[in-house]
């Protein structure tokens, strides 16, 4: 009986869950070493993200952009590409959404459609450059995307004060009107004034769309073939170059939409001089979710919980909020070294069989 249950659970899930457990244990050890009580730490961390309707809403809101950036990285991974350019795509996509939100006057549904589309286009544009360079010149996408991150950083750094300067500060854009925000009254009321917004629904829709593209369409099949074995795909008549560019554009578009959620949903303006960490966190979300859309959704909500609870934990204990990032990074290290976990599992299985 036990054996059959063990077989039904996918190995990726077991590895991810074990990575989480190991990461949490490492976090507990760090708390212990710095003279804090890990039980108190974790209970405040979880309470901070869940103890009221409002905090629950904030947890989901924090998770929303992570769903998009996680999907972005996962989508590129499926084609064998490492899109470390997500931060730049988030930033530039978010900038495009902010620009539309501040300069177009239209009814709310139309305006939101426009700003989110602008974000997707901006992100796709930013993703297309590394994709094109990879396809045509075999330039490694990691280095070219890192360059694109910095270009996005500086372009936005100069464009916001030049065109959308805030009324008080040089370092941020004007506040967008409620009409242009992804926040809607019924959702805010439902969650007791939380900053939760339509971004959550965009994220959930994106999960289904990406799952559909990857599993049910010719495009998805081709993209995955390129990811599995580029030469075999080429031989089978699939245009590898076209698929690489397309994968980076879709990946960039997803990250760009994440930017729209961050700057026109969770926040109401864009601050310059900050690289959106959600882009890098997408790597962690994607890895922990075993690069599957549904896994991305689950791990984004888990990370959302860690991030939204850390402030409360910091207020109630002496534990610095960076413990959340430390735990996430440790989880990723264990996910990256999953061979170790797999070897351990195999050993365990063999022992059982021996008995």
């Amino acid at each position: 009986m036990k054996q059959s249950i063990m077989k039904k659970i996918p190995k990726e899930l077991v590895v991810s869950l074990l990575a989480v457990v190991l990461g949490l244990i490492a976090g507990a050890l760090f708390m212990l070493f710095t003279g804090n009580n890990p039980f108190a730490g974790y209970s405040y961390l979880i309470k901070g993200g869940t103890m009221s309707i409002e905090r629950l809403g904030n947890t989901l809101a924090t998770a929303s952009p992570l769903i998009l950036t996680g999907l972005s990285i996962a989508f590129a991974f499926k084609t064998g590409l490492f899109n470390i350019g997500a931060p730049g795509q988030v930033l530039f996509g978010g900038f495009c959404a902010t620009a539309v939100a501040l300069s177009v006057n239209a009814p709310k549904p139309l305006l939101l459609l426009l700003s989110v589309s602008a974000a997707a286009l901006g992100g796709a544009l930013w993703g297309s450059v590394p994709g094109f360079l990879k396809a045509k010149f075999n330039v490694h996408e990691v280095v070219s995307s890192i360059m694109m991150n910095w270009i996005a950083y500086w372009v936005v750094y100069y464009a916001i004060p030049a065109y959308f300067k805030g009324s008080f500060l040089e370092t941020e854009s004007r506040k967008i009107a409620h009409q242009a925000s992804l926040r809607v009254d019924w959702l805010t009321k439902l969650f007791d004034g939380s900053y939760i917004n339509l971004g959550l629904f965009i994220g959930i829709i994106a999960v289904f769309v990406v799952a559909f593209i990857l599993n049910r369409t010719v495009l998805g099949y081709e993209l995955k073939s390129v990811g599995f074995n580029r030469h075999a795909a080429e031989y089978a008549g699939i245009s590898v170059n076209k698929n690489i560019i397309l994968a980076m554009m879709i990946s960039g578009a997803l990250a760009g939409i994440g930017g729209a959620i961050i700057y026109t949903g969770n926040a109401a303006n864009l601050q310059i001089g900050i690289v959106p960490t959600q882009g890098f966190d997408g790597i962690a979300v994607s890895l922990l979710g075993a690069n599957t859309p549904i896994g991305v959704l689950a791990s984004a909500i888990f990370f959302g919980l860690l991030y939204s609870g850390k402030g409360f934990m910091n207020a109630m204990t002496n534990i610095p909020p960076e413990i959340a990032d430390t735990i996430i990074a440790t989880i990723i290290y264990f996910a990256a070294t999953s061979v170790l976990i797999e070897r351990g599992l195999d050993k365990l299985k063999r022992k059982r069989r021996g008995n």
Partner: protein
Amino acid sequence: MWTLIAQIFPYAIAFTIPLLITSLGGLFSERSGVVNIGLEGLMVVGSFTGAIVIYTLQPIMSPDLAVWIGLLAAALAGGVFAILHAFASINLNANQVISGTAINMMAGALTVFLARNVTGSGNIPIVRGLLRRDVPILSEIPVIGRLFFTSTYATTWLVLAILLLGWYVIYKTSYGLRLRACGEHPHAADSAGVNVYKVRYIAVILSGAFSGLGGGILLVTIAGEFTGSVAGLGFLALAALIFGQWKPLGILGATAFFGLASTIANVSSVIPMLKVIPGVILKVFPYIVTLIALVAFSKSSQAPKAAGEPYEKGKR
């Protein structure tokens, strides 16, 4: 024009040096066949360790001695932290880019976490960094003396010496030959009796030590305090490595270019001649040039052939 060049030159050199040493670390790692995208995180580890050692020692001993002990500690810490990456990518055949990313995330989070336990704010200031000094005699040489030997940091000469030594090790010693063989064709190296795992371990640890030193130098020459990041310099060092085509002299040129371009962008607002160029152009210039260089070199790329490939003994 001359005064302008003479003014910005020391800053450009100061900016180049941490990049150069980190890039040289990346060179050792990648030449052995291990891609190390964790240079950024390893620099952060060096900067943190240097800061905490100097912060503790400066009140009780000569500030200069404390700085040098701090730099040594920074290099050691970087080397030790790099073992995590070596273990993942050499023993466990992990995806090296992912392992490196984990190193970056872990370094950024863990160091600030620890720093907060020390100072509360998460920033660690040092009382005094390294002082600029003129090189005796050589600074009297016209033109060159003013540019290269006036008000220099001792670390600049240290790093240039390491670069020279690195060049010698890579091209003129048996370890260097083995290192390059492991990066090009590990199976051939193995059948010639080279211990691929050992060579790669040494290379990755060296890359950590150099990056850690780079982070430490950044701290004592430019930054003056630990803030939890090195502002993307590690990634820039990685780009310089490719720009410089995995060659010691190549990366010297590439990092010098980045140093000069960044310095010009930083001081442009106070120099009338540069004021006419929009700031954003100057800021993105180094990155655009890197993209163009990547394209230009793509046909004749000198990348180590086995970089990024895990080595499995039995696999042929």
